[in-house]
């Protein structure tokens, strides 16, 4: 029994990384006042490009680690470009953000699938990146498996959480982002270029979503398929609300969701007579239930979320 629980918990950290990166990215978007429902599509594109580069380099066989890194970088750049494009649509042309996001999601998922069939064809795996056992620490029983035997990208993603907090709460740019998402008019009156800040946040958010996708294909699944993302982009958006736009709370949400997911895979693999359809639903039901009971805290919320800013129009 202990084995099963350890096994479950040790899957938690590596499996939560994609969600975590995507929702931290989405947090920056929303803190600046724009929500990007297209997260899923950006992740799909990131996953595709991230897998394509090491696959082309090695033909599916062994490949230098540098190609994996190149895959991540390409995914981040592509994600940032998607963010830029989304900024053009929602900030400059002030299109309704929800509709634009759904469009971006469909575009990203569809394009990634089409390009995949063109360049790769069928299911092909890549070597991916290895787990690193941290000396000494990884040999601690139980704890070592849970915390200290993962791939490098997972460690880096978790190290990014305090960095994200610092950026948001301790740098001039973070201050501008928070002001732009809550009181753009006040920010404007202080000489801050609200549109520019929103573009920047969308590009950062897009880059993180791209990285999240690349993590799925390079580090987690070590392959690409049309259903690789399977709703994680939307869950990431939900986790931002769940986590009250705060990095630490978002991390908690990502871990909780992943725990529910690993729980259901283990329930299935143990062959307990439990309808697997219900088990698969569990994490999603959890998100809905938790979101329904999350307090609507107007104090931390970026109150101008979803509202295009136009200096000339008073609301």
């Amino acid at each position, binding site marked *: 029994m202990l084995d099963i629980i350890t096994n479950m918990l040790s899957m938690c950290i590596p499996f939560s990384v994609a969600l975590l990166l995507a929702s931290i990215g989405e947090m920056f978007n929303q803190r600046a006042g724009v929500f990007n429902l297209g997260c899923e599509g950006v992740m799909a594109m990131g996953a595709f490009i991230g897998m394509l580069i090491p696959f082309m380099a090695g033909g599916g066989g062994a490949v230098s680690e540098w190609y994996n890194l190149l895959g991540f970088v390409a995914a981040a750049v592509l994600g940032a470009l998607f963010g830029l494009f989304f900024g053009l649509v929602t900030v400059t042309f002030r299109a309704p953000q929800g509709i634009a996001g759904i469009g971006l999601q469909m575009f990203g998922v569809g394009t990634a699938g089409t390009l995949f069939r063109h360049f790769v064809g069928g299911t092909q795996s890549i070597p991916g990146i290895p787990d690193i056992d941290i000396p000494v620490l990884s040999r601690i029983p139980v704890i070592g498996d849970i915390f200290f035997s993962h791939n490098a990208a997972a460690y880096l993603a978790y190290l990014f959480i305090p960095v994200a907090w610092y950026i948001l709460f301790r740098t*001039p740019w973070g201050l501008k982002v*928070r002001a732009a998402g809550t009181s753009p008019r*006040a920010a404007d009156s202080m*000489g801050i270029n609200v549109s520019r800040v929103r573009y920047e946040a969308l590009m950062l958010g897009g880059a993180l979503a791209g990285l999240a996708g690349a993590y799925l294909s390079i580090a987690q699944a070590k392959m690409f398929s049309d259903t690789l993302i399977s709703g994680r982009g939307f869950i990431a958006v939900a986790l931002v609300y769940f986590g009250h736009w705060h990095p630490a709370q978002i991390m908690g949400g990502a871990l909780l969701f992943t725990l529910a997911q690993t729980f259901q895979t283990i329930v299935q693999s143990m062959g307990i007579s439990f309808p697997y359809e219900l088990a698969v639903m569990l994490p999603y039901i959890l998100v809905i239930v938790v979101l329904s009971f999350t307090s609507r805290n107007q104090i931390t919320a970026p109150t101008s979320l979803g509202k295009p800013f136009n200096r000339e129009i008073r609301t």
Partner: protein
Amino acid sequence: MEDKIRSLRMEHISKRFPGVLASDDISISVGEGEVLALVGENGAGKTTLMNILMGLYQPDEGRILINDEEVRFRGPEDAFRAGLGMVHQTYMLVPNMTVTENIALGYKAAWKPFRLDMKAVRDRVVEISSRYGLAVNPDAYIWQLSVGEQQKVELVKTLCLGARFLILDEPTSALTPQEVDELIVLLHKMTEELSIIFISHKLQEVKALSNKVTILRHGKVVFSGNTDDYSSQEIAAKMTGHEIILPKNSGSPSDGPVALSIKDLVVMSDRKTVALDHLSLDVRAGEIIGLAGVSGNGQRELAEAINGLRRTESGSISFFGKEISNSTPHGIIEAGMGYIPEERNVEGIVPSFSIRENLILKDSDSPQFSKGVFLDSRKIESTASSLVERFDVRCPGTATAAGSLSGGNIQKVILAREIERRPKFLIAVYPTRGLDMGAVEFIHQKLLAIRDSGIGILLISEELDEIMDLSDRIAVIYKGSIQRVLSKLEATRERLGILMAGVREES
């Protein structure tokens, strides 16, 4: 620190907008340590002139001189750099950030590449607030502060960012009387170091604060002079172009039946604290009861509870003998309650609806305005045009969006709707807040006329003059219960002020 601004002059400023001459050859001047009051009714061109001064608009003609040198502002940044700072009527603060963070937003000296030097900002805030006697807590979040405190933050912010000349756009429009007094003292002290232009249409403050007054009407200067040489009445007459005499309630006490009877009412606030603490109050038909008190003592919750917009915990509200607490708003409206809500743009009208739609909001399903399931647009239009005329709503037509009207005209639309329904009772919450003298006069006349027709009114206001002019009896509310009810004859400003501050009288 750069040079002091010893003098500022705007000379022969003209500005045309399509179809209007918003500024017509206006000249003003302010010297060192002076306070100039820029007075005029809504739409007289005060804000346009200040926007020109701040570089938001370019004048078509005329020039601006600081210390006798001509300056040109291409944008607000240029005006900041020259040392001008403006506090807008609606505050430009981010509610979920602290005072220090809000100021850091504009304090570029603290912006290091990867770090915000919060200590430098904080030091600056502390220095400025002690120098000018503006007590603010640098670590408080804006949402925690009252309106008066937020205004101090705005002043500190403007000064921190280097303002050596202040422009205040209707600084008192959202403040309680106590906060106004405090602000006047503060600004007086600040004139030792800088000069101020303030926009206002409240003559009391103009008298209390300014050395010089310039009155604008229809984009023109109609009068300029030393404040001390003229009385409030003279200034008011010059502002409106005719003499304004606010009407007074001179009727005898009503002996009508009790229309609204509130007993031991307990209601919670939004923050789940007790807002009304066993409040009891009776209002008769045909009398105006003025509810005096510093805002935030339960006035909003009382009005909402009576109108079914807020749940009551215990106690009773009886309306002509019928219990209405926790009824639906619709039921209460049907019972004959009229309501002029506090937030006229949010609760009083649907801003995107036309004037005529707003006028029938409460009667859209009455046979008077509908044929079967369809609205009868002809009847609606004829009723609306006659109301617009009778209530002197200045608008291009009844199809105009109500939200595009000025505050005074919006209030007239609401008043027309509520009165025309012939209610049995009226609750008026801050009915003249932020309105100019002409509109105030009109609304006061209407309220008194309703009273004389035998309808009871609960008038909630923080303007003591308004309460004393209109009320038959005055109830003072403090921390959610009624301190005392005084008759018109017993009430003096001093006595009300003491009661409003929470001091109990020996009775």
